[in-house]
């Protein structure tokens, strides 16, 4: 029974997520006619209603990936070679933020957290958004190999447009995996993922 409830919950999330994806671009385009990639300017008060968990540093994927067009793999460096996508070390952040201090007060405050982390040698503890059960193995590298380096959005949604990252697809539900594998006529052998 518990499983059934969880499943229903999952479906509900997925429906909301899909609605969000459909709803978003219109708002974004209306706001940023001049530069389609420019990130939305936000006041601190605007952030309370954002979807997804609040991270220790208000890292904006939309600024980094969309406005400045940094490739996903610049930070998620091992995604094409390993099962784990890799998380940037503080050192990677400092590569730019040694120089870039932020354009406004709120950005400055966030970048200061990164610099403090670097100075204190204490890594930033990000809140995990996407996870799989431990009995499922997801080799990122195989999926990048099959679908190309820009395949990230297939599961993670268009993160480059997200002010704050949230879960778009209910990826820990096996149905999500299977529907894609069915469509693409690739293995559905249980032991491909479960071992």
């Amino acid at each position, binding site marked *: 029974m518990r499983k059934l409830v969880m499943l229903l919950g999952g479906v509900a999330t997925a429906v909301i997520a899909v609605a969000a994806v459909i709803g978003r671009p219109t708002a974004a385009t209306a706001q940023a006619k001049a530069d389609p990639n420019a990130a939305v300017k936000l006041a601190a008060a605007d952030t309370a209603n954002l979807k997804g968990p609040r991270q220790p540093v208000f890292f904006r994927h939309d600024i980094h990936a969309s406005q400045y067009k940094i490739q996903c793999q610049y930070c998620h460096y091992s995604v094409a070679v*390993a099962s784990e996508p890799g998380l940037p070390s503080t050192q990677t952040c400092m590569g730019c933020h040694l120089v870039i201090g932020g354009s406004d007060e709120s950005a400055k405050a966030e970048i200061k957290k990164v610099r403090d982390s670097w100075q204190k040698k204490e890594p930033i503890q990000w809140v995990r958004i996407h996870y799989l059960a431990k009995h499922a193995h997801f080799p990122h590298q195989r999926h990048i190999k099959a679908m190309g380096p820009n395949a990230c959005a297939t599961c993670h949604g268009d993160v480059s447009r997200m002010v704050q990252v949230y879960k778009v697809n209910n990826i820990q539900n096996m149905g999500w995996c299977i529907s894609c594998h069915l469509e693409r006529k690739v293995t559905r052998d249980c032991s491909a993922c479960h071992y």
Partner: protein
Amino acid sequence: MAENTTMTTGTGLDRRKFLTVLGATGAGAALTGCSTDRVAKLIPYGTQTEDQVPGIPTWYASTCTECSAGCGLHVKTREGRAIKLEGNPDHPVNAGKLCHRGQAGLQGLYNPARIKGPMKKSGAGFAEITWDEGIKLLADQVKAAGGAFAVVSGGPRGTFEQLLRAFAQQAGGSVTKYEPFDHEPVRLAHQAVFGRDEVPVVDFAKANYILSFGADFLETWGSPLEQQRGFAASHGFDDAAKGMAKHVYVGPRLSLTAANADEWLSTTPGAEAAVALAVARHVAEAKGADAGIRSALATYTAEWAAKESGLTAKQVDEVAEGFAKAKAPVAVAGGIGAQYANAVELCSAVAVLNAVAGAIGTTVRFGQDAVQGDGAAAILALGAKMASGGVKVALVHEANPVYALPKSTGFAAAFAKVPFKVYTGQFMDETAAACDLLLPNHHALERWDDVEPRAGVQGLLQPVMEPVFKTRHTGDVLLAAGKAAGYALPDAADFHAHLEKTWKARLGGGDPEGAWREALAKGGRYAAAPASPALRANPAAIKYTAPAKAAEGEYVLLATPSSLLHDGRGTNKPWLLENPDPVTKMTWRPAIEVHPDTAKLFDARNGEIIRVETAAGAIEAPVVLYPGIAPGVLSMPLGWGHTAYGEFAKDRGANATDVLAVAKDAKFVAYAGQSVKVIKTRGYQKLARTEGTPRQLGRHIAEAMPAAHAAKGLSVKESYLELGGHTHDINPEWEDKAIEGWYETQKEMRVYGEGNNYAGEHPAWGMAVDLSKCTGCSSCVTACYAENNLPWVGEEQVLRGREMSWMRIERYWEGGEGGKALEARFVPVMCQHCENAPCEPVCPVYAAYHTTDGLNGQVYNRCVGTRYCSNNCPYKVRYFNWRAYNRWAWPEPMQLQLNPEVTVRGRGVMEKCTFCIQRIRQAQHDARLEDRKLKDGDVVTACAQACPADAIVFGDMNDPESRVRKIKATNARRYHILEEINVKPAVTYLAKVVNVDPAHLAEGGHA
């Protein structure tokens, strides 16, 4: 240490732990199996390490320090923690293989019984201090000792040892090297016979006649892993052209080495030397040795030896003739289990035998010895000095003499008299508990070091991860303490710098930095073996003293080394405790091996506790009836009965050395030949044994054939026919008819989705196990535990038959009755991955199913635990997770060892061998990224990787070029276990080959 057995979850780690698991962005330390517990935080590195990529293992070359053999290691690390140890293929000693003791080194690294930081005696216990305080205390005390300073070191020979000696010398003291199994009789004998105080290197690979006098060269004698490799090379059967060596074992106990012999000659304990002398006499006559030797041997006739040893003159003559005729004979002696009072005479006789047979310089090579210990005499002399108050400060480094030296030597009492004792080992063992200051060393996997197991072979150790605890390299401690005391020690910031400097100077050349890095990558420096010098045997060394007979109504005790625990240093590692003893199949506890006929004399049955008494002391242990021991002889494994050494070693039987009466000036500890009184007590201890049914009962599980038949290329069935009378029909004709076409129909009926194609693009994984090579050493079992996150279940659960060994070694007895010789057969049994698997159709939830690549899959998250599959499995290879072993089989910090690629199963799940599917999938990922197909050898299962004998071959049966396909298609010795039930296993066995006259072969297996 009870507080360490409680578990903390992923979020309860302190900062230090965080550092060690830094970058666990993926599955992390999966503590729970079938659950959706999430790792809530993603913690990246602060600074990107150049050699760590999450999800990809990083391998470091290092050297094993679990015994003095010094095998090379490749350490697999994931996200900054060591998760598996494998052999270094470049290393001359082990060539990529590793024994169970070496692999279990990981459980030493993560052992809860490690000393977690510097401590000082405080009342009955210890109080934590800082490193600065500890070093100051050490420096002050050593200085104040004014030369009355002694060091006991069990560490290997190498740069650290030199530093230790320099420190001791500066302090006015000296270093005594202590290694419990030090082969002193071998040294003493070679000193007497050849004038060389040496342990030679024995090349079993070159030998074609191996004669062992109680030397357990596959377990504890010499360099076991190297010898296993050599033995498998010469004694394994490949083809008629190569043939196979003959192995004869002389001694009263059927050890694992004896169980691998073609003939076992059970002698009166201590009379092995008589046989050796008689064989030497025959060989000397046959080969025309010089007159001095011949006349010294003249009186040792076969008849005399027969009378002394209890064998027949014919048996002695047959061995002598075989040895004399052999092209490359080798004889070995000096095993710990055969270390009788006359052990030096036995080793001398064998040295003379090797000399007259021409083995010196060919199969027995001198000139490569590197002394590892100073012998029992040195440590006992130090004990005497301690007892007389001549030592004010003692430092014990990586040794446990308080436990290992028999009580009768009085060492423990003498050691207690030393006013200030410092311990620089890793574990809270008996010696540490007796000390005043504990300055714990890093584990071998956490430190810089080097070892020299033999001349010309220098192995390097490098830290593969951050230290687990607040330990410190003893080299650094000595350098700091030396500085504080004003000693002239090497000028280096720390031991790492000192080691690097020493090595760079040693390597020389134009590019020392490059050479140093190359040596690190290769795991050390390996020079070619020097030529063995020509040696002449001294006839004066030939002597024989008849062994003292057991007193009236008493028995002879052999205290035998355990192939798993060695001298007792393995007793804190559950992988070794739960891995059954290869011959008795005992787990978790020692038992006294008694011949069933002997047991009748004191009316003891399996598990009944007997008291063994001598003037030196008494021990109590349960009896295990063991047909592989001479009547009138008792045998008890060493390494048990620790009084301190952590939770795992606690309350585990008795220490066999307690009853040994050893003189205070002994040159070696006579572990064998003690006369003991036996008193049956009223106690009973159910034996946690995994033996099952000791006989095959006509089931054809472990097949064997004589070498003559194997050479002719006969199949198992043809061999049976040749041996006379018994036809071995797999199925009667009517039965074959009844199932005709059934299997094919079954296969067609199975639909698992598109592309279910065995013959086409998909592989069909299969395995072949060559029983002519398998020695039953159980290295594969530990490899499986490490690779597949197998939980140990503990004695109480083993008693219920719930051990989780996906891979097990079955041992069956043949013969031993009606005048037939006793023969042991070993069969590694893992999931047979039947094509026609009985477990699959009975699973109501499709958790057991057949994968498209021919595996018998087991989906843990589907399994609901009906256990139907296990009930329907004819091989008993499915293991049910009865208890939540995942909650307690990895007490903190042991969970850091878990392989993140394998699900940790929870309670209520059926589990079994998967053919290391995680390795298959990884190889497939790698091949896909490189746009190529898998090739033979890309996938090596953990068991096949570890097997010292290379008995296990794994591969794709659809690949016409694969080794496994060739073996399955062409090898005449192939058979399947329980072939008649038509399950079409993917595991093929090759029958064992016994190098005896077909007429001698035990009949039992040929019913």
